[in-house]
């Protein structure tokens, strides 16, 4: 088949190329990705409104395009301001294939630069965290940079006189990356095009307030390091599951049963130990009716909120000293409103999910089409008793960690799905639950907690941000 005719059968073309990649044992087929780009790289038709083509989850070529488009045009969480309190403090990380440095400058401002020397590409910093003083210096040949990334000095400067170095990118220093901070949460936009931070997240920015408002001082401190789990599945399989309230009753049944067996109250009012309280969220007592009623809302750009009226976290008891501190800080009415607001998950598409209580955040780091690293972050709410941080850390261990009794079944299912989606046969993944024609603009409307609209809404944003040329319109 001539290459030009593949366009209309895009899914099949990608599948063929995946087979070719396997045969050759290479990671990416340069011809094929160039072909995708050449065909105007239109992949939007792989989402049909109520179902998704498997290539969206399995194709290395699509993954490469995601790194260039979706993850470059949208905003990703990098780190928390509390990780770099003093001038010169830095953290390094890698997001969508870009090695990055977050550093605090002398004037206390934060900057994000590419962790790649403008000379020959060596990593300037290899520690995860530390202090770099007043400058960044590459260990290879000693090129140095100011904390905003601009070039500070070169060894034996005179040899560059009369060369074109100062006129080109290499002479400008470390590439600067657009960043934005809200309530201590630092986000980056890796590419040069795309919406502003405020425009992109819109109402979803309130999820960050939901986290920080739970501190009587309105400030959080990240408890480092986050848990990190390497999972052999596409990042979207994990992301869809974050707001998949239905799977809890099937996938986690054995853990629910074990959770019920380990403890019973000696007296009717004996308070539940914290692990029992948290596992109770996964117990059938909550039931289908409960998750239906807990409600969901979708927002532009793929963001969503699950658990409007209630969530599996609603029954958590609070320390009286904490309640008193919150009332003192915010007044009774506002404190009550902050504490009553505990959705299951606020998703800031494409890579962040937040829980106000128990104060945890999940961040997805896409590594390959079939590999994702999950980071599970915890925060200490300044001015709150230690119980809150303990609850936050316990939740991450119990539900997200590499040894978690809950995550084991999720990971098993994600990984088997990732493998079986490669098989021939029906290539479509179903997201039909609750689908109605014309739902594309149902932003802010109350939906059932088991409506797959939260996932369809993510794929609509995916198609928008995967467009070959950035148009700037809203999803």
């Amino acid at each position, binding site marked *: 088949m001539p290459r030009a005719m593949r366009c209309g059968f895009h899914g099949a073309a990608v599948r063929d190329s995946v087979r070719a990649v396997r045969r050759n044992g290479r990671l990416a087929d340069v011809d094929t990705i160039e072909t995708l780009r050449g065909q105007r790289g239109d992949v939007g038709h792989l989402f049909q409104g109520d179902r998704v083509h498997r290539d969206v989850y399995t194709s290395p070529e699509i993954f490469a395009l995601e790194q260039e488009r979706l993850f470059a045009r949208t905003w990703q969480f990098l780190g928390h301001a509390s990780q770099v309190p003093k001038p010169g403090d830095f953290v390094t990380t890698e997001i969508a294939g870009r090695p990055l440095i977050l550093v605090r400058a002398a004037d206390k401002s934060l900057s994000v630069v590419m962790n790649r020397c403008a000379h020959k590409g060596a990593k300037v910093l290899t520690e995860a965290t530390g202090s770099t003083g007043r400058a960044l210096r590459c260990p290879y040949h000693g090129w140095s940079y100011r904390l905003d990334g601009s070039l500070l000095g070169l060894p034996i400067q005179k040899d560059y006189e009369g060369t074109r170095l100062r006129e080109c990118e290499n002479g400008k220093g470390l590439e600067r990356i657009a960043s934005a901070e809200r309530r201590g949460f630092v986000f980056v936009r890796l590419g040069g095009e795309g919406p502003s931070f405020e425009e992109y997240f819109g109402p979803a920015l309130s999820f960050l307030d939901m986290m920080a408002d739970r501190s009587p001082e309105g400030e959080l401190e990240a*408890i*480092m*390091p*986050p*848990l*990190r*789990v*390497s*999972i*052999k599945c596409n990042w979207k399989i994990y992301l869809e599951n974050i707001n998949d309230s239905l799977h809890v009753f099937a*996938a986690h*049944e*054995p*853990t629910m*049963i*074990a*959770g019920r*067996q*380990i*403890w019973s109250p000696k007296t009717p009012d004996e308070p539940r*130990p914290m*692990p*029992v309280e948290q*596992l109770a969220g996964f117990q059938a007592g909550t039931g289908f009716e409960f998750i239906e009623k807990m409600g969901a809302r979708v927002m532009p750009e793929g963001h969503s909120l699950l658990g409007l009226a209630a969530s599996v976290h609603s029954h958590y008891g609070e320390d009286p000293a904490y309640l008193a501190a919150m009332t003192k800080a915010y007044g009774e009415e506002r404190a009550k409103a902050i504490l009553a607001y505990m959705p299951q998950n606020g998703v800031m598409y494409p890579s962040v999910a937040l829980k106000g209580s128990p104060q945890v955040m999940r961040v997805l780091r896409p590594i390959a089409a079939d590999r994702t*690293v999950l980071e*599970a972050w*915890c925060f200490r709410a300044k001015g709150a008793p*230690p119980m809150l941080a*303990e609850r936050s*850390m316990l939740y*991450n*261990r*119990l539900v997200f*960690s*590499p*040894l*978690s*009794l809950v*995550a*084991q*079944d999720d*990971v*098993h*299912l994600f*990984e*088997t799905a990732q493998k079986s989606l490669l098989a021939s046969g029906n290539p479509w993944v179903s997201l039909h639950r609750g689908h109605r024609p014309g739902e594309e603009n149902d932003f802010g409307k109350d939906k059932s907690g088991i409506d797959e609209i939260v996932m369809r809404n993510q794929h609509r944003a995916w198609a928008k941000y995967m467009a070959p040329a950035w148009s700037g319109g809203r999803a």
Partner: protein
Amino acid sequence: MSARTLPAETDLAAFVYREARLVDERRFHEWLDLFAEDGRYWLPMRREQTDPSAEQSITVEDKPLLLKARVLRLASGKAYSDQPPVRCQHVLQAPAVEEIDHGANRYRTHTPFFYAEYRQGEQLVLAGTARHTLRLEGGALRIVEKRVDLLGAGNAIPSIFLMP
């Protein structure tokens, strides 16, 4: 070791070998019985970590609640990720005895290991060090704490389905 004698170095080593073997043979209830009632299974993220409540850990499980839940879940035969049953193999270096304190009833060992886990057609291999703190209860050694420092624990590691 009879009820009247105090544990010697060889008894401590034999205990550590048996503990690993019970997991390898999927004798989970017997494994749980090796823990003291206040016993703890702890996998920190950092070797320097001394307090499980100060920062995140891969897991901290007290015997009566979460460690028991782990064993009940595996023993139920219903966990999807355990179908077919996951198997593991500990390969232990000879345990080094770090402390024998009969007066304080405290015994500590240090055991580097390789741990392999076979699941869904794939084998995962991890390395690490297990540190056991034991005490004598009614003539039998029991685990007060089993601390496992995995190599690379602070970085992204795959899910682990049994107990290194």
